[in-house]
């Protein structure tokens, strides 16, 4: 992540969380936190407890972030952020937590006051991790049409093209899902499972081979000892944890999207 990307990220994060951006300069950003965001980022529960108990005037903090070294920022007192700095990761976590669940409607202005139906979609962004003693992730974005059961990939990319709004627009009505969101999740899980099963898993075969080799070495090490000592079993367990191939699927975020039906989609 480049420094200007970090800057851009911060700007959007604080705006999205209703924090005033007091200054947005070259290589720095000053933001006034809301009470809510102060609680989220500043880790001072005692202060807030005190203010709430005494009815004092809350004074959320103003933060200065420096994203580039310039003559100007050199004199500035603030937190220098880069990819990997703990503060940025705290903000990352907060963003992830605050952006998990969504419900949006496609914003359309129907002509001639005619009522337009919006179809329900379940959208999920998913992280799949292949893990042994090594690890690789990839992300999937899937959409499930909750009426006819059609599944599309790169769903997020389609959404990005549309204008979306949290309130249902005038003259629009939603169609009730035939597939319940809960079973929609199950369908998408099944879809992901099939996708994974068709993938190349030589990584797992290789890990199993490494695992087996080390088990053989271990057995050889203790072969002349009649009763295996405890450390033999400990080591064996360690090898399993080290090498055993696992696939982990977790949902990054997702929700319901009510979209105008399009001929090419469903």
């Amino acid at each position: 992540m480049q420094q200007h990307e970090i800057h851009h990220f911060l700007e959007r994060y604080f705006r999205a969380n209703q924090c005033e951006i007091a200054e947005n300069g070259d290589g720095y950003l000053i933001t006034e936190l809301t009470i809510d965001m102060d609680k989220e980022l500043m880790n001072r529960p005692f202060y807030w407890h005190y203010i709430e108990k005494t009815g004092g005037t809350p004074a959320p903090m103003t933060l200065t972030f420096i994203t580039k070294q310039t003559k100007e920022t050199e004199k500035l007192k603030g937190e220098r952020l880069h990819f990997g700095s703990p503060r940025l990761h705290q903000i990352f976590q907060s963003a992830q937590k605050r952006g998990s669940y969504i419900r949006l409607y496609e914003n359309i202005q129907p002509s001639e006051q005619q009522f337009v139906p919006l179809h329900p979609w379940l959208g999920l962004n998913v992280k799949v991790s292949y893990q042994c003693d090594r690890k690789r992730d990839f992300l999937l974005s899937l959409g499930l049409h909750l009426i006819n059961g059609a599944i599309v990939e790169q769903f997020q990319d389609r959404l990005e093209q549309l204008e979306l709004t949290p309130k249902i627009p005038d003259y629009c009505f939603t169609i009730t899902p035939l597939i319940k969101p809960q079973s929609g999740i199950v369908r998408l899980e099944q879809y992901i499972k099939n996708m994974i099963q068709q993938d190349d898993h030589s990584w797992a075969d290789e890990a199993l081979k490494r695992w087996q080799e080390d088990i053989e070495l271990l057995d050889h090490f203790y072969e002349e000892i009649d009763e295996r000592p405890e450390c033999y079993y400990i080591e064996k367990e360690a090898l399993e944890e080290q090498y055993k191939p696992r696939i982990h699927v977790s949902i990054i975020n997702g929700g319901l999207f009510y979209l105008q039906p399009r001929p090419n989609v469903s």
Partner: protein
Amino acid sequence: MKVEIEFDSTWKEGFLERLEQDGPWSSWDLYQLSLEVAHRLSIPDFYGLQAPNHLPHLTPLPHQLEVAKQVVEKMNGKAILADEVGLGKTIEAGLILKEYMIRGLVKKVLILVPASLVSQWVTELNEKFFIPAVQQKKSYVWEQCDVVVSSIDTAKKSPHKEIIYEQNYDMIIIDEAHKLKNNKTKNYEFVQNLKKKFCLLLTATPIQNRIEEIFHLVSLLKPGHLGNAAYFTEKYGKTRSLHADEHLKSLVNKVMIRNRRTDTGIEWSKRNVETMIIEFSKEERELYNAVQSLKNISAGSPFSLITMLREVCSSREALFVTLKNMLKKHEGETPPYFNELIEKINMVTKNSKAEKALELIQSINDKVIIFTEYRATQLYLQWFLKQHGISSVPFRGGFKRGKKDWMKELFKNKMQVLIATEAGGEGINLQFCHHVINYDLPWNPMRLEQRIGRVHRLGQTNDVYIYNFAVKDTVEEHILKLLYEKIHLFERVIGELDDILTKVELHNFEDYLHDIFFNSRSEGEMRIKMENLTAMIDFADNLNKGGTTYAAT
């Protein structure tokens, strides 16, 4: 190949709850940001290193990055990091740990280091790697903190040991791991019974004396890699060095990485070495002669006699301590020579070496480290310098961790001189100082390297000055001549000597020297033996220059 697929259900639960309560829902902006974070944090490939992207302020050296890559990609996260002193093994370990943490493969970590290094590790991991490492101070730390740094001596004791065994560590890092070369020790047993999913063993000297040491070290990391004990002894028991057996070497290199200074292509600051030959006073000389004459009446073992001679060269105090201990052993029955020696000790009124040291320190007028082999000398020197208005800091291996840090800070910020005994030399980084006095010389050249490595390491920007003290016409002068004039030890880059000694299979260099000094019946014989030794080393040296260079071991 069928791998089990695990679905995380936490999101689902939250979603169903929101459906029921009709919200709250995120904004589209936050939703997009959240996905962007996931993109940024996902690991695109099994291979390569992610850590450097997370550490833009840290510029690891090429060899350090290479080590990290190799450990992750080729060694499956279990390795002995055996770079020579001063090449940054801590940085390598930090990079590897960071890599695994970023990849989400490691969360809970136990780092065992010598007591004197605990806080240094904590600081480096936090400041250089943003790894929230915590020093173990209270027993709840084991359970509550993810990355804990402790000394092995604390960890192996109850109740800590039991608590540690209950933790589920993803990674174990052990610094100065050569201390685990003996499989009969409590430390070894403790580490053997730790579950080691990923494991790094750090040591600059994977083999100090015997080939079995590498067997024990490797067997901790990867039992069976070098066969079992019986197999190893039968197959390699007679091998004197790793170089002697290509097969063994290549096996070891699968689990061990060793970089040498010469391989790294880094330009080191210069090393200036000055020998200072000191003349004994009349009384000191008499004391020395008196000890030497014990050889004829064959008192004690050769070892203790040579030790005593070396002690006289250091300080009368050092000799006195030994005599006192001998007396204890004789249970009060004084050997005939005892009183004579005590009398001679009492006659000595000054320490010629100490006076030279004082003069030198005054003229340097900058920070100086004095190394001595003897605690009595250390105490004496501290007193002596104080008499002349120079405050100094003592440093010993036995100091508690906090005291070591304190002493180092005192030396850095307040005092001119640090007086360290051998054991105190290990692991501390003193790059802010560039003058070293070897008040007496260790006979093991590797230990001399360890000493110099304290200051002549990465991060040393000044040229380093080393002053070697030796008393004229004593064993010390012989040794110095050998180390300095014949082997050119001090001009060598660190590690070269290791190579050479390995080539001539001179692992017990020290024993060899003892033999020369004690068993030679005349000065002439001694000279011839010394010349033989020098010739052997020269021979190996030539081999080294003309011959192959080894990538590892």
